[in-house]
C-alpha cells in the first residue's frame, strides 16, 4: 500500500490535476520554486485544506481533516511561543500530542546543546529552527511533514538539521516529507523526490532509480525538466 496517493487533485488555481503515489519511502523531498504550490500540497496531505476536486489518500484512507495521530505538521513560519522556555515548549508539545516522545525530545535537546531554561525569544534563529525540528521529530506519527525547515539558515545549521532528520526519523515505521529549494544540499538524504512546477507535477520518483535509469543527479533531472 502506498503512503500517499493523489488522484486527479485540483486545488483552486494553485494545483492542477495531480496524480501520483508515494511508497513508504523514508525521506521524501518536495522540490519546487517559490510559488510552485509546495506548501499547498503539504497542507492537503496534512488534511489542513481540502482539494477542490479529486481524492487524496494517506495509508489507504481518504483524508478529510487533520489527524494528529497520522501526521505531524511543522509549518513554514515559526510556530513556537516566544515567551515559553525550551523546556516549556517541549512540555506543551507533549501535552498536545499523545504520540510525543518526551525522552527523545530531551535527548535531542541535550545533543544539540539547547539550554532548556532559555526562552524561545532569546534563542538564535538557528536554535529556534532546531527546536521546531526536535518537536516534530519527537512525534511517532507515521508521517512527519516539515515545510521549508532549512530556509534562511546558515550552512552548518542546515547540515545539522539534515543529520538530525537522517538520524532520528524512525525510517522503519515513519516517513518524512521535507520541502525545500536547496536541492543539491538535500539530494543525498532523499529516498524519493516530488518536483512541482507552477502547480503541476514534473517528477515523482525514487531518487536512486533516477540515478540508475537516467544516469543523472536530481539537479540534472530538474534542469532537464525545466528546459
Amino acid at each position, binding site marked *: 500500500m502506498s503512503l500517499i496517493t493523489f488522484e486527479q487533485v485540483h486545488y483552486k488555481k494553485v494545483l492542477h490535476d495531480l496524480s501520483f503515489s508515494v511508497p513508504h519511502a523514508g525521506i521524501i523531498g518536495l522540490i519546487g520554486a517559490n510559488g510552485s504550490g509546495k506548501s499547498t500540497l503539504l497542507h492537503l496531505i496534512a488534511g489542513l485544506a481540502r482539494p477542490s476536486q479529486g481524492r487524496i489518500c494517506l495509508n489507504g484512507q481518504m483524508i478529510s481533516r487533520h489527524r494528529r495521530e497520522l501526521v505531524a505538521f511543522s509549518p513554514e513560519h515559526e510556530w513556537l511561543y516566544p515567551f515559553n522556555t525550551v523546556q516549556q515548549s517541549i512540555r506543551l508539545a507533549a501535552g498536545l500530542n499523545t504520540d510525543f516522545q518526551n525522552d527523545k525530545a530531551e535527548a535531542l535537546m541535550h545533543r544539540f546543546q539547547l539550554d532548556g531554561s532559555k526562552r524561545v525569544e532569546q534563542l538564535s534563529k538557528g536554535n529556534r529552527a532546531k527546536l521546531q525540528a526536535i518537536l516534530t521529530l519527537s512525534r511517532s506519527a507515521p508521517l512527519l511533514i516539515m515545510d521549508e525547515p532549512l530556509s534562511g539558515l546558515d550552512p552548518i545549521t542546515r547540515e545539522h538539521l539534515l543529520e538530525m532528520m537522517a538520524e532520528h526519523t524512525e525510517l522503519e515505521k515513519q516517513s518524512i516529507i521535507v520541502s525545500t529549494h536547496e536541492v543539491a544540499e538535500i539530494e*543525498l538524504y532523499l529516498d524519493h523526490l516530488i518536483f512541482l512546477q507552477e502547480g503541476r507535477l514534473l517528477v515523482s520518483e525514487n531518487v536512486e532509480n533516477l540515478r540508475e535509469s537516467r544516469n543523472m543527479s536530481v539537479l540534472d533531472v530538474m534542469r532537464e525538466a525545466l528546459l
Partner: protein
Amino acid sequence: MSHTFQHSQPIYTQIMDIFIQRICRGELRPGDKLPSVRDSAVEVGVNPNTIQRSYMEMERRGVVETKRGQGTFVTTDIELLEHLRQELARNQILLFLQSMKQLGYSSHDIMNMINCSMHTKEDTKS
C-alpha cells in the same frame, strides 16, 4: 570518511565501494563489526536507507553478514576477501591499460614507464 559522490551513479554502489576498499586495505578486518546504519548515515551524510541498501548488496555478495540483533560484520571468509581484492586490482589494471592504449602506448612502453615511475617513487621515499 567524508566523500564527494558522483551524483549520476547510484549512491549505494559508491558507498559499497568505499566499504570494500576499507576492507581490502585492512582498515576493517575479517569479523569486524560495521558501524550501525544510522551512524554510517550521519558519518557519510546520506540517507540511512541508502546505507541499508549498500549493506544489503554487500551481504548478497558475501562480503559481510548480518547477525540478527547484533549488527553487520565483515565476513571471516578470508579466501573470498582475497579474491575480491584481486578482482578489484585486476579491474584497476585493465582500466589503466585501456587509458594508456588510448594514448597510443605499446605494452612494452607501458612496462618501461611503470618501472621508471616505481624507481623514482622509491628514490624520493628513501
